[in-house]
């Protein structure tokens, strides 16, 4: 699975303040795009109140192997109908604890950089020697 993290949530994730994944998630294979702008367009990141922008230089994503999510998938809250729509199938998830092994990547145009891996309690970054 893959989830694009709003920029302002990246730090809370990495410093342990945020320990759940919630909201719209996608199959990784459906949502592997080459550049941030594609993410923006395809995943409807321009929703009202979004801090994503179409010309952002980078976007952070979480990737994890889907666990049994039957307990957390729900119909999404009713949103007003005039927002942008995702072009790929999307799933709405109630908060779940971040699965062990979840990885964070930074996507820039044409490249992706491994940022950290969640060990279940903390994010381990490469420089610390995962």
């Amino acid at each position, binding site marked *: *699975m893959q989830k694009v*993290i*709003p920029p*302002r*949530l990246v730090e809370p994730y990495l410093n342990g*303040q945020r*320990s*759940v994944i*919630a*909201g*719209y998630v996608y*199959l*990784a*294979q*459906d949502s592997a795009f080459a550049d941030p702008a594609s993410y923006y367009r395809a995943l*409807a*990141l321009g*929703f009202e*109140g*979004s801090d994503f922008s179409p010309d952002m230089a980078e976007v952070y994503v979480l*990737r*994890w*192997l*889907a*666990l*049994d*999510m*039957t*307990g*957390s*998938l*729900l*119909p*999404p*809250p*009713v*949103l*007003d109908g005039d927002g942008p*729509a*995702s072009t790929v*199938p*999307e*799933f*709405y998830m*109630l*908060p779940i*604890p*971040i*699965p*062990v*092994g*979840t990885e964070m990547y930074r996507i820039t145009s044409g490249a992706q950089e491994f940022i950290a891996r969640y*060990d*279940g*309690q*903390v994010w*381990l970054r490469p420089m610390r020697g995962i």
Partner: protein
Amino acid sequence: MRYRLMATYRGVPYEVGLGPSNSEVVLFAACPPPEDLGFEPATGHWRKQVIRAEIDGLWESRPVGTFRGEPCIVLDDPGERLHIAYLGGDAERAVNLGYWQVDRGVFELLAPREEVTGLVEERVDKPLRWGEQADATGPMATYPYGRAPWPVAAPPVPAPRPAPTAAPPAEATSTQVGPAADTEPVDDQLAAATLADPPSTDARVDAALPATSAAASSPPTGISRASSPPAESSRVSGPATDIPRPSGPAAGIPGMSAAPADVPRVSNPPAGIQRPISPPAAIPRPGGPAVGIRGASAPPADSSRINAPLTDPSPLGTPSENDPVADTPLARAALASAPLAEVRPTAVPSASVQRATGVLPTALAQPTAPTRAEDSAQSAADTWPAGVNARMEPYPGPIAAEEARSFPAEDISEPLPVPPGFYDPESAALADIAPAAAIRPAAGVTPAGASKPASDNTPGSDVTPASEVRGRTARRQRVPTREIFCELADQASIPRAAYAIETETEGAMCLLPTPDGFDVFIAADGVRRELRSFADEEAAYFYLFGVLVAEAIRSGVLAPAVAAANPYGGTV
């Protein structure tokens, strides 16, 4: 107070994390647990990776309450304020209540503690067996509006993709087919079989009932978890159904496939009719605390299949049929170990157990289908030996280090203490060579399995000449390895339903002859997992034996002394 996952391991609850695969569970402890539990130090905590088979309960601890009249869940408890998330279904309302939209459709807030009222800590049990569908009404436990918008089985996707596409799994790496569609026929079949069969054992009843009653007693409305089956019953049923073979590559099963699998699931029976996935419940795994042990001591009455390994004429048929003596159980028992000592000295049972648990699984890992290079499957495959090793190598310490070293360096020809229940091949070899007088002492030393046949075999032949003994020995070598295996497995109290010989049985560890040799694998949900291929029959059988014994040891079935010594065990 915060939202988290919990699990019970050896009677003690821990906070846990799930993943990377669905069968993997990581236990966390803030303080160092007893060393013999094998926790490892990590950043700010202690951790131990186990598999679902090793835990007795898995649940979400969900502190839910009401914030300004609407339901919320407490994500974290950072201090004087609570980090809560909106659980309702109306975005506008959420905003009006003061929530922040931290992400599209995600509304959260740091709320003054006193404003969150009616806080209760819900316990939402999760299935222990990977691949098992969650409680059909699970997600609705906290659904705030009395009646769920639609059954859980309905696609939660606003614009669901066309169902089939075989429920593409999460990452491109997990290419297993969508489980729901594929396994259901099997499950249903099995379920039907289970229900149709007269409840032959308590174990089966215990296992089957909670599933159905759970379905019956939990309407898809926002009724609290109190209405779900009592923890105890789910505990019993959980482990029983728990075929979580150590290997469960999460990849295939529930994982992401579960999410899109929601689409295929639309065609399932209504949400209220939870598939009793318990058929495998009738297959007591050694890992299943309650039922597993019961199974070990009293094989299920439904023994037609279970007895198969012993009663079927062996297709591997060696001259045992020609030898009337060999057909008697006692003779078989006596013969059983002879080849071990004479043909293959390395096959000393205890030695092979250690080697199998410690080394074999990884050493023999082959790039076969279930363990193909994909990360998920690979890591899952690694779990098995790793878990075993975790037991074998206690937390680093001087003694432990020595023990750890001693495993690989072990001289397999060195006589090892024979655990109770094992036949000592060396004594048997002596017995073969020595005159009858020498047999007696040997039999006295060896455990039941050996002494019984020895004494029963020699009532009238106390003076059997050595030459005749040798002649019998020659015949003994022809005893099928299969029978040796079955004999040993019985002596080790391995539930017969845990394995299947020359047949593929769902939920069991199977050994199948192939044109090239023998395959040993776990049949789970129609997929062969942890497949190992052996050219040599004995290697295949003893690999199978090693894995089974390892699991029995792990679950405590074979090591009551260890369990009793566990400070956490208390009243084992």
